[in-house]
């Protein structure tokens, strides 16, 4: 079953083409890695899929809804974690969870059970009453993820979720991702860490707004006769003409 299918999606800002005619599909339950150098157009593409930005041309279906005409329905069935930390720092941990559960329409009577469950999964029982601004970065990121899936969305979009996070916490973060995938949530993730790319079922590599390669990490390594994903990435990204932003 396809949960994301994109056809010839393009976004231009003036004369600059940020996303250039990309097409791909993602199946349910998959962990889909969306790779590319800075400025390759990943964030723009994700923003279109989430209904934050309108495509210049092309179509996309997410969770069975058209991203252009049914963006509100799309929003109800996805979770999103942005590159920049964007939870409320002046709210406590449980208050943030409660807020987003409420917004996504989790019934009031289930919310406190939901909070307990998420705190337990995260191992945050002691931090329940902590203001979010007092948490270390890695913890904040784990909390963000947990909140992005608080309403059991069909798909969750993660935009560089582990940027600046230490290796141990990154490890724990990926465990959370696997847990979610096992529950049937499709994961759409961008990252800079090539070791993380290895954890994905399939990865696409974007260069200058176009998708240059899309396959499982194993097949990609074979195709480009590389030892690891880092080499694959280096080969493809070398062709890039855009400067990183």
């Amino acid at each position, binding site marked *: 079953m396809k949960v994301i299918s994109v056809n010839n999606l393009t976004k231009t800002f003036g004369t600059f083409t940020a996303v250039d005619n990309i097409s791909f599909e993602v199946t349910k339950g998959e962990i889909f890695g969306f790779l590319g150098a800075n400025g390759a157009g990943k964030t723009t593409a994700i923003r279109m899929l989430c209904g934050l930005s309108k495509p210049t041309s092309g179509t996309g279906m997410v969770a069975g809804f058209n991203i252009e005409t049914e963006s509100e329905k799309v929003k109800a069935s996805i979770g999103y974690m942005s590159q920049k930390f964007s939870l409320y720092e002046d709210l406590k941990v449980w208050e943030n969870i409660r807020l987003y559960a409420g*917004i996504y329409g989790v019934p009031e009577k289930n919310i406190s059970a939901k909070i307990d469950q998420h705190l337990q999964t995260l191992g945050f029982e002691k931090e329940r009453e902590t203001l979010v601004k007092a948490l270390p970065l890695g913890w904040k990121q784990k909390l963000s993820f947990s909140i992005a899936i608080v309403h059991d969305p069909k798909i969750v979009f993660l935009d560089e979720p582990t940027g600046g996070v230490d290796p141990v916490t990154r490890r724990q973060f990926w465990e959370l991702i696997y847990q979610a995938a096992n529950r049937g949530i499709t994961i759409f993730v961008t990252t800079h860490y090539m070791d993380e790319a290895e954890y994905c079922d399939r990865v696409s590599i974007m260069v200058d707004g176009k998708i240059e390669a899309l396959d499982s990490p194993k097949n990609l390594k074979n195709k480009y006769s590389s030892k690891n994903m880092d080499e694959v990435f280096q080969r493809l990204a070398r062709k890039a003409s855009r400067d990183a932003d």
Partner: protein
Amino acid sequence: MLKFLIEKEFKQIFRNPYLLRLIIVMPFMVLLVLPLAANFEVKNINLSIIDNNHSPYSERLIHKISSSGYFKITDVSSSYEKALYSIEQDVADIILEIPSQFEQELVKEKSSNLLISANSVNGTKGGLGSVYLAGIVSDFSNEIREEWIQSSNRITTPSFTIVQQYRYNPHLEYPIYMVPALVVMLLTQICGFLPALNIVAEKEKGTIEQMNVTPVKKFTLILSKLIPYWVIGFAVLTICFGVAFLFYGLFPLGNLSTIYLFASIYVLAISGLGLVVSNYANTIQQAMFMMFFFVMTMIFLSGLYTPVNSMPDWAQFISRFSPLKYFIQVMRLVYLKGSSLTELLPKFFALIGFAIFFNAWAVLSYRKSK
């Protein structure tokens, strides 16, 4: 959904120490300190006197002036040059020169001249001061005329009396006039400025982006920003009624519910304006400057400090587009004259118009996705 968002706003407001303090301290600051300062009353005008006559008449005149309550004699000079120097030094505001033949002329020719020179750099003070002084001089000439008439035994003098009456504020107390209007300024800040700055701050921090990927509707999000400030606005309004009563003994002659009704429409209008600003501004600095620009114009043209009727036509025209003007008038009318809704209907519809206009603009200019 709305419930959770409003809950969140309240938690944030109560957790911000500066904001909370501001909201509590402001009503007292504005209502207790500003009326003391924002007072145009011209009193204690400093007078420099050159008495070239030194006669019983000239001394009677000087005595009359100094006991009028408006003037304070701060300088007695022997020449006009010296008196002028005291004006340059800001020791005196007005010079009164009594000619050397003052009494003689009055007795012989039954008329005399006086010279009044006023420093009119500050037009109000100079102008009003000289009008008051001329008034006292004319009273003085009435007085001596009466004496002359009595002594000369003429019976049928044509005369009439002028009776003055000040309605609504018989003792002409300035705070009574300012306090109801200053409440409007407070509401403007709390329900117009604060939600706008709040939204812009979320933009600057990036938290609004997370909201934008949720299924929350534009309308719901905006409402969740406004409702808490409306609640606070009404709480502050009620505190203001209390402060006005406790410190100034001021209670509306009209109906309190009329004020609440108008306040609820006004608050809608002014928070709509705030939202418009927040939609165009990307940083707090920008938002603040736009607000400063518009709100300052509106406040000064609203008649809060100076009467709208005295403004030039173009300013009166612009003032029609200031929602503050209507609500300030309403507050003063209901508080001091006891006007009721029927008399205030035109102002009521004007405010409803503003509320619809600003909020429609705000909703249209708000972009959840670009």
